[in-house]
């Protein structure tokens, strides 16, 4: 049963558009899936390989701009950005990895944080190429209907899920975990830590980049403040994984569900007004205090808590 769970969930998601959800629900679902893709990619680098990145907006933005620039400068469909950004973001991650992966722990985190900001400022000032703060607007989006966008992002998510699952269960995955647990010990055992960290960074970056390219196609408008945002992209990515569960397969999904769907519901509660952020913040604090390994990571604990309530109630 457990073995087939991913396939069952995939099948359920695949029939969702057929039952006729409103476009509003579809939009939220698309965002949930897009964020879970970004969460999964972060989880590979941050969760399994232990390299906590505060700069995933850099990859997201480079992916988004690959699609955007193809459209604005080369008159191609921005959908070509999806395959092309694999190459572009991989090269970008190699260059960036060469610099930031020499650093460890908090220094790595700070360097990645800076890299995201550097990319934002670059995109703002490189006006001839990126359009600067005016951004890139795609005049006609491919479809008005959301069904196709939904399936495309669903396929991306499914492929990412299975790829990361395979990767983590392979020898490579053990190398990643070894690096996370003790980088010096891993090195003394003959693991080329720089190489494997670079591999993790590249894969993670490329997946995030694909999500970015999808964002351009789906939203039809990008500017540096939107796609290279420190808070709205980099930090939210980390929150998704933290809330869902670091180094778990399902964590990013649960995290994205909470960070997007639940956030949207709380935002929509009439009468709560601007206080919804406070309310949501308290919810997050409660989750992090009582379930430090995230909802998936502390699922047993969560079950116990709920069970206790039932027993006493």
């Amino acid at each position: 049963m457990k073995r087939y769970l991913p396939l069952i969930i995939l099948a359920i998601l695949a029939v969702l558009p057929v039952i006729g959800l409103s476009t509003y629900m579809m939009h939220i679902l698309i965002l949930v899936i897009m964020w879970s893709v970004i969460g999964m990619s972060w989880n590979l680098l941050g969760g399994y390989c232990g390299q906590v990145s505060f700069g995933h907006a850099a990859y997201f933005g480079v992916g988004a701009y690959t699609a955007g620039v193809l459209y604005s400068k080369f008159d191609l469909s921005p959908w070509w950005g999806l395959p092309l950004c694999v190459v572009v973001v991989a090269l970008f991650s190699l260059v960036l990895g060469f610099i930031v992966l020499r650093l460890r722990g908090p220094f790595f985190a700070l360097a990645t944080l800076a890299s995201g900001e550097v990319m934002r400022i670059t995109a703002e000032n490189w006006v001839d190429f990126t359009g600067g703060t005016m951004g890139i607007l795609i005049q006609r989006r491919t479809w008005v209907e959301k069904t196709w966008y939904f399936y495309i992002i669903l396929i991306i998510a499914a492929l990412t899920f299975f790829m990361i699952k395979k990767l983590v269960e392979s020898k490579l995955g053990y190398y990643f975990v070894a690096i996370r647990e003790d980088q010096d010990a891993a090195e003394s055992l003959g693991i080329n830590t720089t190489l494997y960290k670079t591999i993790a960074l590249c894969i993670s970056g490329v997946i995030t980049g694909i999500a970015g390219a999808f964002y351009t196609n789906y939203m039809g408008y990008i500017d540096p403040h939107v796609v290279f945002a420190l808070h709205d992209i980099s930090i939210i990515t980390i929150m998704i994984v933290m809330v869902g569960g670091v180094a778990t397969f399902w964590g990013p999904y649960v995290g994205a569900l909470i960070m997007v769907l639940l956030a949207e519901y709380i935002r929509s509660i009439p009468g709560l007004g601007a206080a919804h952020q406070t309310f949501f913040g308290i919810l997050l604090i409660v989750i992090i205090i009582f379930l430090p390994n995230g909802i998936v990571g502390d699922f047993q604990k969560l079950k116990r808590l709920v069970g206790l309530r039932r027993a006493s109630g």
Partner: protein
Amino acid sequence: MKRLSLVMVFCFLAGLFTTPLFAADNFELSIPLPLTGGQAKFGEMEKKSYEIAAEEINAAGGIKGKKVVLSFEDSQGKPEISRAIAEKLIDVKKQPLIVGDYSSSSSKAIAAVAEERKTPYLVVTGAADDITQQNYKYVFRLNPSTAYYSSGLMSFMNEVVKPKTIAILYESSDFGTSGAKDMETQAAKVGMKVLVSEKYEKGAVDFKPILSKVKAAQPDVIYMVSYVMDASLLMKQIKELRIDTKLFAGGAAGFAIPEFIDNAKDAAEYVVTSSLWCTMATYPGAKEYGEKYKKLYGDFPSYHGAEAYSALYIVKDVLTRAKSWTPEDIRTAMKATDMMTAFGPIKFEDRDGYQNQNFMDTLVLQVINGEHHCIWPEKYASKKYMYPIPKWRDRK
């Protein structure tokens, strides 16, 4: 803890399922606005202004007898949330038109959805030029785009000051850079020579090195694009250095708000600035709105508030004229809009590469006796402009 979490879950569910019940003769309008995050200051001001307008409209009998009931959705300044709100308003709430949001990027996200779903959208503050350059049929904009922000000041300079040279000082942000670039092209167009064009870091405390350079160049006009602290500091140091020119001009923002005069004191005297609106403007209702806002919230609103306030009056006008309240008829009525509001005359036109854009004169304000007065264009002036301005040593 258990009980607490139970209570929380209960509150949450209660919140979800208790949608307030309204009487059928209400017109409900949900407005997306950034109520949290970095743009919340402007979102709040707009929210208050919408509320003032709704109250006035309801007191006067509502729209076609229906009471206006406003609600606000927090878009947090994020385009994807703005889009979610737009989808919800169209799909779930079946709202026949959309009004609002603050930033250009959020307005663009909503505009694309509105066009695809054939629902009229009234842009209230998004100023990026390209929002109304996409051949959108359902997107209307009441505020002038950034390219027109300094047009009033330019016409004042051309007709009154007739300067030959100009020095431009601006802060290093997009707002500052685009304002300065715009002024450079405008100056080139009328044959004005740019002697100095200097960028400074926002929040600097000593402008004297830059200002000495300006003094040496002896320009006819000094044009500055800054926020409030820099604006007043610049003018104070200009006074200290006794730099005399024909005109000191500011590009809206920091120069156009009352804090500028409070901080710069007498150094602010005679400084002119471009602005989209001011409470002193002679548009009908502008002063009343400004004073009502000040009475309620303790400060005069900036043009953002006036835009929001007027937006609701446009909605009222459009809905009164529309044959039926379907998106199609509302669009037709919107297109035919020709009215006066507290923000100025509103008419949606297709020209100069724009569609459904409201073109209007931007104003020029001058500080006269420690107060901002509207001096240009002359038909809206609340006071005659003071020109030529006295040299520093002749001032008391």
